[in-house]
Every structure is written in structure tokens, then in C-alpha cells.
């Protein structure tokens, strides 16, 4: 694959090309291609070029890391002092970040070059990337289709090669689903493997920052740079090194067949065949919770969303109403009403509803208990039989922008295979594996036990070799 991380790093370090040259080339490409996809919402040539210059100096001194001088993009919910960070919301459209996220600091310490901030659904609320304040993003393979979301801009920016890699965030499939729709690799690490410090929170106990790249090898390199304990995030920890010889792959065929379309099933068949080519044993697995992932997610994640969104009052930062107000409450109400989209309002209302009065016991605490039961079930009944779970990433390839989901349940289906990893905190990776009958990318999802990120990435690297996916142009 052209322009992957390793090959570019080699060229940079052999001084066949400088980071400034490479960055300039990418900036030009963004100018040309961003009209098509709207993958980027902010760029700043001056910042990018000055970072590139610094990288060239490090390379000249002979002390680079693999990431030194490599241009990348970041989802717009990841805090960067150098460029705006708005979560693609009117609420934060003029927000000036006051600190850097831990992941950005780590990338900068490795000499990375930030090209820009990528489009997303407002506050990561969505699976289409049609829902941001700065306009829709379009799938580079068919601009009438969605990139997926919420990290859709990141996926598109890699797919059209307007950067080498990106970081996205995933609370319910938000890295993996757009990765699958755009034909790239997207990895959601074990919960806590990467610091969330500086990630504009959606659903705190579900989400992780993770790498998105052109192949598994690149993903691995980026992951190893951004992972680890962090004094600013007490849920972050150092994952152990893991390997798995002769892994056993679990497959829930009934579940996949019930949900996935014909094209996706065909690619899934190929993936199962790849197992035998790789000498991996496959076993049938079954979770009794297949039908309730989405319900648990709605109740628990939306409750956290409602709570996390409370800080946007327009008082200390963010959008403040320009209209007249009677008192503080009225001011807060007007600021929020004017700045949030309906999607955001819906989720806040739903989440608060789940936490109010008797619903607390009836829904929230019941769901919390079921989430624990689900974890137990996975470890007792699924991971007792296998090391990794194979499924498609999504039931279909990227849907059309004008497609109207019939219900909230139906739209949740796009993440049906991705959700258990968020509910349980598992590492999970989407690998491009084939195409649909109309040539749209289709990804396969591998999910492992908690902390088995390294082992998962190694297995994914082997799978990738048998992928039928070819980069489309």
C-alpha cells in the first residue's frame, strides 16, 4: 500500500524526502480533495509546517522515532492547543483549548506533524458524520454515501490519503464502523489502555481513543506510542504485553446471518476461510445477550452523556445566548437550546430521563447490573471457548446519505457487532477485508479479551495478509 507509515518513515530517515516536503504535499492534497469529502474541519499550514521543520531537525540530529515527521490528523474532539477543538458543535465553535490532550502530547514528543482536525458527528453523537456543525462528511469512494461515524472525518482523511494516520474515538463503534465503511483499519483498545485526558467526553465508561491507519502494522506502532498510564486519567493503566500462539477464533454464525446482508456475509465467509488458511481453529460461540446490547448502550451511555454535557452552560466557556434572559437558569436554557442540535438534545433528555425518579432503579441500575452480567457471561461462556471473536464490523457497507433509518433500533444495528467491546471494555479492530457488489469497502471485526491488545494486533496482522481488499481509486 502506498504511503504507509513504515515506508514513509524509512524514506524520511534515509533523507530521501524531508518532512517539510511531505507535509507540503499533503497540505496541497487536502486543499484539492477536502471539497469532495469535507474530512477536515480545521487546518493550519503554519502550524503543520513548523512542526515538520522541527521534525526535520530531529531527523538531522539522528534521533527520530518512527512517527517523526509523519503527517497525521486528529478527530476534532481531541484537545490540541495548536488548532481549534470544537467537537464539531456550535457550542464549542469558538472554543480555544487551554491544554493538550495526553495523546497529542505523546505524538508531539515523537515528532508527529498535525495536518488538521477531522470532521465528526456533533460531540461524537452519531454513526454517519452527517451531524456536525461544519457540514456533512462524504465517503471518498462514493460521495453519496456516508463515511460512518462518529470518527468519519478521520476515516475519510486516511482513505483518500490526505494523511498517513489519524486518531479517532470509539464509545459504541465510532472508530471501527467508519473504518469499515472507508476501507481502512480502525482499532479500539482495551478500556483504559489509552488516556482519555483531553478527549471531549461522550460516554466516559465506554469510550477509548484509538489509532486509525492504512494497515494493522501502522496501527500497532501508533498504539504503542499513545498507550499507557497517565497521571491525568486515573482509569488509564499499562496493559501487559501479550501473545497468543495457535489462537482459537469464536464465531456466532447465527447472530451474523440474522443481521448481515448478502455482500457482507460473502466477505465474512472469506474471513472464516482465512482462519483455516492461517491454521486457526474456529469454534461456535453464543451469547444470550445479543438482543440487548443496544438497549444497555442506550440506557447507560446516554445517562453518562447527559451528565457529561451538563458543563456546557455558556457561563465559563462555549456558546452564550445573545438573546435576552431573565435569570441564570434562563440563560443556561437559552444557550443550550440555541447551540445543541436535536440529536444532542434527544440524547441528553433520554439520558436524564433514565436517571430521574423511579427510572433510576427501573432502568439505570437494572442496566448497570445487566452490564456486569454481560461481562460475566462473556468470560464464562465465550472466552472460555475462544481467544478472539470474528464477525463483520457492520451488517452492511456504507449506507447512502439520504437513507432514513426507520427507527432508533434500526440505526443501532450498524454497531451491533461493535457494541459488546464498548460494554465490556474489550480491544477490537476492524480490518478491510472485501467489497460489496457495488464496490464499497467491507471490514471484518476481531475482538479479544481485555488487555490482549498486542495479541489481537498480531492476529489481525496475519488476517490482513488474506484480505481480499484492494485499495480503490
Amino acid at each position, binding site marked *: 500500500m502506498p504511503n504507509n507509515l513504515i515506508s514513509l518513515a524509512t524514506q524520511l530517515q534515509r533523507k530521501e524526502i524531508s518532512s517539510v516536503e511531505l507535509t507540503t504535499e499533503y497540505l496541497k492534497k487536502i486543499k484539492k480533495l477536502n471539497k469532495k469529502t469535507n474530512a477536515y474541519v480545521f487546518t493550519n499550514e503554519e502550524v503543520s509546517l513548523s512542526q515538520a521543520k522541527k521534525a526535520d531537525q530531529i531527523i538531522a540530529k539522528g534521533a527520530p522515532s518512527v512517527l517523526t515527521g509523519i503527517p497525521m490528523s486528529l478527530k476534532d474532539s481531541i484537545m490540541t492547543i495548536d488548532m481549534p477543538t470544537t467537537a464539531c458543535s456550535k457550542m464549542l465553535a469558538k472554543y480555544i483549548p487551554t491544554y493538550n490532550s495526553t495523546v497529542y502530547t505523546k505524538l508531539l514528543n515523537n515528532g508527529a506533524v498535525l495536518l488538521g482536525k477531522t470532521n465528526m458527528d456533533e460531540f461524537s453523537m452519531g454513526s454517519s458524520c452527517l451531524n456536525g456543525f461544519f457540514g456533512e462528511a462524504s465517503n471518498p469512494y462514493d460521495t453519496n454515501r456516508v463515511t460512518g461515524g462518529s470518527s468519519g472525518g478521520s476515516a475519510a482523511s486516511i482513505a483518500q490519503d490526505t494523511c498517513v494516520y489519524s486518531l479517532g474515538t470509539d464509545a459504541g463503534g465510532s472508530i471501527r464502523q467508519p473504518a469499515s465503511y472507508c476501507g481502512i483499519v480502525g482499532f479500539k483498545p482495551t478500556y483504559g489502555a489509552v488516556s482519555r485526558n*483531553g478527549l*471531549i467526553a461522550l460516554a466516559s465508561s465506554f469510550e477509548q481513543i484509538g489509532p486509525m491507519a492504512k494497515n494493522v502494522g501502522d496501527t500497532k506502532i501508533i498504539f504503542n506510542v499513545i498507550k499507557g498510564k497517565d497521571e491525568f486519567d486515573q482509569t488509564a493503566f499499562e496493559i501487559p504485553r501479550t501473545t497468543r500462539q495457535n489462537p482459537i477464533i469464536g464465531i456466532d454464525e447465527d447472530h451474523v446471518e440474522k443481521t448481515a446482508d448478502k455482500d457482507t456475509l460473502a466477505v465474512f465467509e472469506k474471513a472464516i476461510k482465512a482462519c483455516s488458511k492461517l491454521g486457526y481453529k474456529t469454534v461456535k460461540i453464543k451469547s444470550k445477550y445479543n438482543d440487548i446490547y443496544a438497549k444497555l448502550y442506550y440506557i447507560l451511555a446516554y445517562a453518562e452523556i447527559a451528565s457529561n454535557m*451538563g458543563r456546557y452552560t455558556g457561563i*465559563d466557556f462555549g456558546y452564550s445566548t445573545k438573546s435576552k434572559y431573565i435569570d*441564570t437558569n434562563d440563560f443556561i436554557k437559552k444557550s443550550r437550546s440555541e447551540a445543541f442540535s436535536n440529536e444532542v438534545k434527544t440524547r441528553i433528555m433520554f439520558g436524564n430521563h433514565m436517571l430521574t425518579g423511579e427510572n433510576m432503579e427501573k432502568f439505570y441500575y437494572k442496566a448497570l447490573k445487566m452490564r456486569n452480567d454481560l461481562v460475566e457471561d462473556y468470560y464464562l461462556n465465550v472466552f472460555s471457548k475462544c481467544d478472539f471473536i470474528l464477525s463483520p464490523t457492520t451488517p452492511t457497507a456504507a449506507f447512502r446519505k439520504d437513507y432514513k433509518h426507520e427507527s432508533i433500533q434500526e440505526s443501532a444495528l450498524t454497531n451491533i457487532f461493535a457494541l459488546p467491546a464498548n460494554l465490556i471494555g474489550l480491544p477490537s479492530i476492524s480490518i478491510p477485508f472485501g467489497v460489496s457488489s457495488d464496490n464499497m469497502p467491507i471490514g471484518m471485526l476481531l475482538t479479544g479479551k481485555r488487555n490482549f491488545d498486542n495479541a489481537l494486533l498480531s492476529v489481525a496482522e496475519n488476517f490482513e495478509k488474506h484480505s481480499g481488499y484492494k485499495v480503490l481509486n
Partner: protein
Amino acid sequence: MSKYNLVVGFETHVELNTKTKIFCSCANEFGGEPNTHCCPICLGEPGTLPQLNKEVVRYAIKAGLSLNCKIPQIMSMDRKHYFYPDLGKSYQTTQSARPICLEGFLTLDSGKKIRINHIHIEEDASKLIHDAQNIYIDNNRGSTPLIEIVTEPDIASVEEAREYIEKLQAILRHIGVSDCKMQEGSMRCDVNISVNKEGEPLGTRTEIKNMNSISFIEKAISYEYDRHVDLIESGQKNQIIQETRRYDEKTDSTESMREKEDAQDYRYFPDPDFLVLRLDSKFVENIKKTLPKLPAEIKSELIQDGIDEKAADLLVKYKNVSDYYLSAKTFGDSKILATYILGEIFRFLETEEEKEQFNIKISANDLGALSLLQKNNKITAHIAYSIIPKMLKDGNPHTAYLTKEDLEGFDNTEIDKLCQEGIAAMPKAVEDYKSGKEKALKAIVGYVMRATKGKADPVYTENKILELIR
């Protein structure tokens, strides 16, 4: 006695004096230019996460152990939601489901135990300053650490209420977790009050929020008690509603706050930014080892030493006073030292603040030595009392104010002479003594003392007089 029982419970917020705030590394200091002790974390900016200050956990456990609480093996943090400008995140991080300390008690002098339901840790809100048009926010106080100590409704009188708060203050000051200054807001009480007849179920309780003075607490409780009793007696029991009231010191009455707060649903739920924290027994044991002697223990030792109860209470009220006293005691006489401290020294330290600080120029060692001189009759109490104010002012040791003469007392032959003079001058006293009125001797001792301007050793003098009249 009224036929109605008073039933009072306390929820006391105490600001911990840790170096930094509860979730970030900003300084935890009272005052300061507005909005100078804050950072993205305590301002609740997007993307920030809390880091629980371990010192806060230690301080809270110290408080719990000192109030005889159980420390559970795990604790967790919860979010309490409400929209108000004093709360940047629109939720307060607190503990609801699994607080850090459970089921303790505080013992009153009567031996009665006021049960502690639990103690939890939480962040304070920012300070709001209102003027006619605007509300200003000072975030220096935002996210400073608090503990909330919640009692059972075990307090049955205004006196018990005062004693509970005073004892609580003394304990928390002794273990060094807070200065408990009500006037500065580092200790604030919510007091809930109900009345009932003996043997009947508890009445409807009202809560008076944010009390910042013990005497106001006393007055507010008295007022509420009378109000409840009057309403019941006049057949308007249903007028007592569960509500939050405010005490107005100007009118010495309480009024309903009529804020929506009563009906508010705080939507408590586990804060996902915290892991459940394990409080292992070794950690707790180690904290236990660092606990100093508590006021109650020191007090009972003082009483054994012969100090009266009231004096003992004053000596243990502030940690610095008690530390100083205990240290001076090792060099001198405990009873005499108590009179020095509660007398001349407390007179010199006019305000409570100064007494609490107890920043005096006399070393404990020196004051102890002075008390020994008095004890051994080298000097009289009168001399000691007259030089202590000078020592406090100038900071010189006691030796600087005592002449050789003072220290040696009078030459004994001269005292012998004075004794003879006294006996000769007061034949009536001698007669009285001989007829059994022992006190009559004091008159002659007094004569000698006056003649020596108090420098004579009274014990020597008395013995000499006895010797001469026998």
C-alpha cells in the same frame, strides 16, 4: 420541662486543609485574588478528568477513625447533578453509595454517644458574589476538598448541640485535618430539627442550611423547637413541612427558603471517571498509627492530674494550646501551668484566632521552669503572674525578670525576725490559733508576706511561726 422532645441531627461540612484541591494540583488556600487558584480540571473544562488527591482520602480516614467509624474495604465516587453557576461541571463529585467512613460516634461529657451515620468526601462549589445586577464567580474555592459528617438524630438539647460541635471541632483540629473556622466557612452545618412526644414517632423535620456560628445554631434550634411546638399545640401540625429553612440572625427567626431544591432530583449515579477505590487494611492501619492523642483522652488525663473539667476543656480546645501545654508540663507543674495559660497568657491572646494560633514568645521549656520555681516556693504566684506579660511582650526568658533576690527569696534570719514581729503584733491571732482556729495562723503569715512584698516562702514562714509559738 416541655412535654415535647427535641430531636436534632447534624450534617457538617468541613473543609480539609490539604495542600492541593481534591482533583487537581491547584493550591487549596483560603482567599487569594479571585480565580487565581484554578486550572482546566477544577474549572471543569471539556476533556478534563479528575485525579483523586490521596491526601484527601487519608484526611477523611483520619477523621473517621477519630470518630470511631468503620472504614469499609471499598469506596466509590458519585455525581450529584444540578445547574448553578457555582458548579462548572453542573455536577458535584461526591459519595453516595459507598462513602469512605461508616457508623461512628462522638461521646459527650455525659457519656451519651452521638452516632455518626457516615462521613463522605466531596468537592466544594465555587464562591458566588452577588451585586445588584450580576453574579461573579470566584473559582478558587471550586473543587476544594470537603468531608461531610452526618449524624443520626441523637441530639436532644441545645446544650448537646453546642457540645457536639465544639467537641467535633476540637477533634478535627487535633488531628490536623481542618481549622474548623465557622466564620470563614471552613466548617458549615446543616441542622435538621423535629419534635415529638415521648414514645411517639419522630415528627416532620425541617432543615436549616449553612449555619456558620455556634450561637446562631443554638438560637435557630430554639426558634425551630418553639415554632414546631406552637404549631402542634395550636392544631396546625400539618403546617410543619419537610423543607429547607434559613436562619436570619437579624430577626432571630427562620424562614422557608422556598427554593425548588426540595423537589430537586439530583440524579446521583456512579462517576465513571473513577475506579472503585480499595482501602486496604494496611493503609488504614498506617493512618491509625499517625493519629495523635485525641482531646477526650488528653482531657481525662488532665482531670487525673487534678485540673478541673472546665479548665481541661479550654486546654484541649485548640491543638496548639494543648500541644504547648503538654510540652510545658514535661518541664514543670501541670496545675500551675494551667493557671498561667488560662490566666495571663489567654488574657494576652485576646481573640479566639490568636488563642488558636498560640503563637507566643515564651518557650514551653521556660514556662515550665517558671512553674517549678513557684511550685518550690522560690517565687510566689504573684511574681510569676507579674512577669509573664513581660515575657510575652519581649520574648526574654523568665530569668531576665527575676533578680537574685527574687530567686533566693529573703534571707531566712530576716524572715525569722519578721515572724517574731508578727507574733508580737498579733497576740489575738496567736490566741485564736492555740484555741483551735488553725486559720488564724494565716494572718501572721500574711503579715510576713506583706512585709517582704510577697518574696517570702509561705511554707517556710508558716513552719517558722509554728515553731515560735509552740
